[in-house]
C-alpha cells in the first residue's frame, strides 16, 4: 500500500441535467448550476468562501471557441483570486482533474478544492463534433485518411472479436444495460421522462433494437456508441481535518492511478507474455497473448494496477461494489472489464452475458447509465463519475436520481474509470465510504 501525506475525502457533488443541447445556458452558467447543487443540496457545512481553489476540467478549445475558459469559469463562480488550474487529457480529462485535486489536497497544498468539469458540444453540429474529437487522434497519419473515433474503436473491437470470440450480441447487452439504467436517472440525456432537457422518445431499448440500429462502423452500430452532451459536474475534495467538519459522511479516496499508451493504437506493442499482472492473476494465463495489440488497453491495466496497489485491492471483482466505467463504446466497456481484471483477458463478453455487471449483479457497472445512457460532455464526464460514485457510497444515488432503482445497496467501495483517445490516457480512482 502507498501512503500519501494526507488522507483526502470527497465531501460533495453536483450535476446539471445533461442534454444534446443546453442552449438555455452558457458553459459558465452550467458550471454554476452544478456548483449550486454541490454547495446547497448535499447537507454539508461548507460556505463557498471555504473553498481554497479550483481545478477546471474541459477537453476542447475547438468546441468552446474560447481559450483560457478555465479562468472564465473560475471567475464566474466568484473564486478569484484563489488558485486555479485547467486540466485537459481527452476523454480522461475529468478523471485526471479529480486526481489533480486529490494530489493538491494530499500534498497539503490546499485544504478544500472544487473540481469543475464541463463541455458544450452543441456549439457545432454532430459531424463537425466528430471531426473535432478526431483531432484527438494523430492528425498526420490517422485522421487524414478518414479516421474518426467510432472507426478506431470498430477496428479495435473487430480485433477483440477475432482474438477472443466476442460477439455483437454481447456488445448489445452492454448498450441495453447502460441505456436502461439511465431510465431511472433524472440527469440522463436519454431519459425522456425525468429529464426536462432529455432527448425525445428515447426510453428503454432491447438487444434487438441495438442489433437493428444502423452501422456507424462495422461492428459498431448507432446504439453501441456514447452520447455527445452539454452539461457540467462539480466535485468537492477536502483534507481529513476539513472533511470531518464539512460532513458526517465523507467518502475517502483510497487509490489513484494513471496509465498511458501510444497516440496511434497501431504503435502499441504486440508482445507475447507482455501483460502487466494484477495480484490475483497468473503469468501462464497470458503466455501466448500478444499484448496489448489493438485489442486491449494497456493504459487501463496500468492505471488499475497502480490504484489497486495503493488501495490494497487484490481481487477487484470481490472487493469493489460498483464501477462507473468510461463506456464510450459497448466494445470498450467489454475490453475494459479485462483491463481492470474483473475477468481474464478474453472473458469480457461472457461477463456481461452472465449478468455480473447488471445493476443487480455481483459488480454493477454504470448504474448511472454511463456515457451511453446518461451523458458524455467530455470534460464533465470523469467528474460526473466521481459524483455518481460519491452518492452511491453515501446511499443517496436514488435520492438524487429520483428513483431507488439505481442505488447499489450497501455499496462501500467504488471505482471510477476515465479513458482518453484509443486508450491513450486512463485514470482510475477508488473511493471508500
Amino acid at each position, binding site marked *: 500500500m502507498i501512503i500519501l501525506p494526507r488522507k483526502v475525502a470527497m465531501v460533495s457533488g453536483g450535476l446539471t441535467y445533461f442534454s444534446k443541447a443546453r*442552449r*438555455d445556458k452558457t458553459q459558465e452558467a452550467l458550471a454554476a448550476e452544478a456548483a449550486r447543487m454541490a454547495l446547497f443540496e448535499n447537507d454539508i457545512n461548507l460556505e463557498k468562501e471555504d473553498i481554497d481553489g479550483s481545478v477546471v476540467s474541459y477537453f476542447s478549445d475547438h468546441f468552446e*471557441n474560447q481559450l483560457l475558459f478555465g479562468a472564465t469559469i473560475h471567475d464566474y463562480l466568484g473564486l478569484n483570486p484563489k488558485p486555479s488550474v485547467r486540466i485537459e487529457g481527452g476523454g480522461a480529462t475529468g478523471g485526471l482533474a479529480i486526481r489533480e485535486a486529490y494530489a493538491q489536497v494530499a500534498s497539503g497544498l490546499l485544504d478544500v478544492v472544487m473540481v469543475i468539469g464541463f463541455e458544450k458540444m452543441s456549439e457545432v*453540429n454532430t*459531424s*463537425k463534433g*466528430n*471531426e473535432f474529437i*478526431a483531432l484527438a487522434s*494523430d492528425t*498526420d*497519419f*490517422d*485522421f*487524414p*485518411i*478518414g*479516421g*474518426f473515433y*467510432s*472507426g478506431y474503436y*470498430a*477496428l*479495435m473491437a*473487430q*480485433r477483440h472479436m*477475432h482474438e477472443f470470440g466476442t460477439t455483437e450480441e454481447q456488445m448489445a447487452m452492454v448498450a441495453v444495460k447502460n441505456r436502461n439504467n439511465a431510465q431511472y436517472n433524472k440527469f440522463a440525456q436519454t431519459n425522456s421522462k425525468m429529464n426536462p432537457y432529455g432527448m425525445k422518445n428515447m426510453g428503454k431499448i432491447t438487444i434487438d433494437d441495438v442489433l437493428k440500429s*444502423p*452501422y*456507424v*462502423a*462495422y*461492428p*459498431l452500430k448507432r446504439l453501441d456508441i456514447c452520447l455527445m452532451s452539454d452539461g457540467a459536474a462539480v466535485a468537492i475534495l477536502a483534507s481529513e481535518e476539513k472533511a470531518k467538519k464539512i460532513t458526517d459522511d465523507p467518502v475517502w479516496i483510497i487509490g489513484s492511478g494513471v496509465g498511458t499508451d501510444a497516440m*496511434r*493504437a*497501431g*504503435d502499441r*506493442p*504486440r508482445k507475447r507474455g507482455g501483460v502487466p499482472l494484477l495480484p490475483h492473476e497468473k503469468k501462464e494465463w497470458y503466455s501466448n497473448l500478444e499484448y496489448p495489440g*489493438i485489442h486491449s488497453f494497456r493504459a487501463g491495466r496500468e492505471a488499475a494496477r497502480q490504484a489497486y496497489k495503493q488501495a490494497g485491492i487484490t481481487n477487484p471483482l470481490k472487493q469493489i461494489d460498483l464501477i462507473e466505467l468510461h463506456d464510450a463504446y459497448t466494445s470498450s466497456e467489454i475490453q475494459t472489464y479485462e483491463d481492470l481484471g474483473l475477468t481474464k483477458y478474453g472473458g469480457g463478453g461472457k461477463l456481461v452475458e452472465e449478468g455480473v455487471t447488471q445493476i443487480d449483479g455481483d459488480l454493477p457497472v454504470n448504474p448511472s447509465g454511463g456515457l451511453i445512457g446518461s451523458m458524455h460532455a467530455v470534460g464533465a464526464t470523469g467528474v460526473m463519475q466521481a459524483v455518481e460514485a460519491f452518492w452511491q457510497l453515501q446511499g443517496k444515488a436514488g435520492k438524487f436520481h429520483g428513483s431507488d432503482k439505481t442505488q447499489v445497496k450497501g455499496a462501500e467501495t467504488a471505482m471510477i474509470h476515465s479513458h482518453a483517445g484509443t486508450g491513450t490516457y486512463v485514470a482510475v480512482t477508488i473511493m471508500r465510504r
Partner: protein
Amino acid sequence: MTEVYSIEPLVIKIPYEIEYRHSYGETSPFFLNIAQGKLTATRCDHCKMTYLPPRGDCPICLRETRWIEIPDVGRVHSFSTMFFAGEKFLKDIPFSLAYIEFDGVDTVFLTRLKTNDPKKLKIGMKVKMHMSRDVEWKASDVWAEPI
C-alpha cells in the same frame, strides 16, 4: 451579416476558417518518398525496431532512426467499414479502414482499404499498397487493396 440560428435563446452562427502552415518536419521523407512510389519506414538499429508510421527518434532509446524501404505487400490485421465520418470525410462514405501488418515492421499501419466488395474483407488477407501518382502530400496518398 450575422446568421441567426434561434432567437430564444439567442444563438448566432460564427464561421471559422484557418490555414495552417503545417510542417511534417522529420517525417517529410515519408511523404516525399511516396511521390517516388516508395513506401518507407524508420529503423532503430540499436533497438532493432522498425516504425510505420515513421518516428524520427526511437521511442525506446531516443536515438535517431534511419529511413528504410519496406515491401509493398502486407496482411490485414483488422478492418472496418465506415458508414459515418467526421464532416470532412462524409463525402467518402462508405469506405473501409484497415490496420496492415508488414513483415519486418513492428507496428501496424492504419490506411484506407479500397475494395468494391467490403463483405469479402477478412483478417489475415493479403493486400498490396498503392501510391497516388497525383499526390496531395497527405497520408491518404498511400492505401491498400486486396490482392
